[in-house]
């Protein structure tokens, strides 16, 4: 009896700890990214070890020209990683040190996730000309750092967008498209409860995987002809409009969407 209680207690405690560890609100603590971004040196150090400020402009221009060519070569990230130790071994050591310091302070799992995020960030920011300039001309270090901070903010905003709705312009674009497709049946009475809610499952390109009238049962009820007509007209509008004008990013946030078709305003005229 005592043994089973102990095992149960132990397992529950373990489960509790594991769950608590994985909670994002516990795990989410801001990490100072700037030191790690020093990895970006790698691309440049192959060719520029020149600290002289007067030559900086010329070098920046050269690098900018090369950026355009490099963008297409940027795609495979593995190659970049290989270049890192060859070019500058020191920053990696720094990262390791930072990791160790943070290991002592924070949960190991969380640091791993954050590092992953950083690597994605690196891929995007690999050819930031401000960073390059900052490395050449120390006077630009500060401005580069502020830029990074700003970038960090936008990254957080992107995360928040996952939970937010459509922006006003995104919503307006979608509405404008559907307005054009929806032929409101003019014979409907304006004093009826005429609100049709349709749930959509969308593909990333805005085409429809599935559409469902939420109050579907009402369509087949006697005396609900008007509702059925309106629901059918709304379904026709969606089919006519597809692919819908959806945002190009943030698929996760809009892949399921609900459209509320309300004809009262139009019918009351």
């Amino acid at each position: 009896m005592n043994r089973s209680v102990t095992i149960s207690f132990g397992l529950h405690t373990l489960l509790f700890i594991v769950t608590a560890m994985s909670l994002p609100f516990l795990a989410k603590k801001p990490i100072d990214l700037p030191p790690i971004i020093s990895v970006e040196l790698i691309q440049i150090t192959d060719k520029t070890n020149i600290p002289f400020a007067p030559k900086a402009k010329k070098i920046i221009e050269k690098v900018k020209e090369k950026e355009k060519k490099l963008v297409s070569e940027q795609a495979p990230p593995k190659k970049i990683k290989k270049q890192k130790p060859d070019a500058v071994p020191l920053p990696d050591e720094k990262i390791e040190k930072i990791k160790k310091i943070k290991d002592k302070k924070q949960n190991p799992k969380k640091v791993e996730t954050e590092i992953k995020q950083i690597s994605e960030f690196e891929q995007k920011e690999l050819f930031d000309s401000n960073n390059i300039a900052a490395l050449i001309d120390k006077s630009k270090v500060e401005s580069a750092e502020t830029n990074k901070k700003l970038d960090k903010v936008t990254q957080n905003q992107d995360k928040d967008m996952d939970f937010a709705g459509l922006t006003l312009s995104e919503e307006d674009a979608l509405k404008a498209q559907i307005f054009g497709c929806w032929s409101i049946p003019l014979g409907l009475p304006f004093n009826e409860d005429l609100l049709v809610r349709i749930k959509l499952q969308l593909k990333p390109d805005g085409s429809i995987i599935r559409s469902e009238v939420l109050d579907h049962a009402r369509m087949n009820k006697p005396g609900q002809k008007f509702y059925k007509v309106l629901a059918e007209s709304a379904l026709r509008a969606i089919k006519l409009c597809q692919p819908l004008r959806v945002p190009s990013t943030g698929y996760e946030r809009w892949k399921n969407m609900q459209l509320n078709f309300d004809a009262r305003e139009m019918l009351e005229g």
Partner: protein
Amino acid sequence: MQEKCWKDKMLFRYLFILLILLPIKVFALIEVDITRGNLNPLPVAVSPLSIDKNSKSNFKKILNKENLGSEISIIVENNLKQSGLFNPLNKDAFLQEPDIANLKPRFEDWNLIKAQALVTGKVTFVDEKLRVEFRLWDVLAGKEMMALAFTTVPNNWRRVGHIITDKVYERLTGEKGYFDTRIIYISEEGPKTNRIKKLAIMDQDGFNNKFLTLGNELVLTPRFSPTNQMVTYLSYFKNLPRVYLLDIETGMQEVVGDFPGMTFAPRFSPDGKKIIMSFAKDGNSDIYTMDLENRIVERISNHPSIDTSPSYSPDGKHITFNSDRSGYQQIYVMSSSGKNVKRISFGSGLYGTPVWSPRGDLIAFTKLHKGKFYIGVMRTDGTGERLLTENFYQEAPSWSPNGRVLIFYRETKTNKKGEGFSAKLWSIDLTGYNEKMVVTETDASDPSWSSLLSN
């Protein structure tokens, strides 16, 4: 007490653990409100109904029609177009043959010409009778919405076209159609000083016109019964007004009664058992009803002013009428017993001929303001007045059985000098945009719309 406290604590702990175990990342479902759309008529393709060779030759012999399938589809097409709610597409653009389209439409082809609904069908000659099948398809959804078949005598082929339109209209708009109906009106011929007026009846699209009286007596204000094909109208016999009842099917006519003085506009009650009208007794015009079974006349309104043009609400509980009791002619509503009289029109100008909509939500009226006549509608409490059409002279609106369209008559000057005039029937829907002239053989006035011939 301690035990309860311990239980509460345990419950709290369990709830806390449960909350932790619940999925944490929850996406709020994005909702977008669509409050506007376009008011363009719905594009509909009405494919000619397919017909086999044998049936074709039989119908040619009986009806002298080359291709009855095409003829019926043209009726459907014209009706849908006339309603203003649909835009029938040009048949030249159709890619699929009628016989194949009726079996299984290639929706891609119909989608290509932007059709959102498709009507297909088949006409056959079976046992000396006309059999018509039709199907309504939702082109975008790629599914059948409705399939029906009718069998009737070949002479009813126009009615079949109207019935198909009613069914399509009802399925696509949610309200009953008004195409398988007739209109009774006063046919007018001759100069204004010596006008010959006959009672006439026709289909709502102007076909099958018939004259019901010879024109040797003045006839006025015919009104259909809402329940059957009976008509009540006013006629002057030896300069005395008489109220008549006419059975359209049999042609039988009877006098309801002679009434004193000026008698106006008899109209049926919703159950068809009473007639409501106004007549002047002792110099005072009031509203009266007459029971058609026992012919008992009952006074409804009692006021020294002139009360005329009564019309029942569809539930029979209220009556709307016009009266000058406020100093000039306005619209009033009262209970069917004559109590609780309430003025509902307060706009400038004179209001008359109020008619309660069969749907019960609106009252149509004629308004005279600054020398112009308007046909308009208002809610039954007088709010939401909308003037649908304006002209030099027009009056007497009558509702279609679904309460969506009004028919009325309009007099126009035939030349710029104002010499001569012409009276024609016009229809307008509640949007006020779809105004159309109803073609009649002669000049026409005082129209009244029948209820649906087939339910």
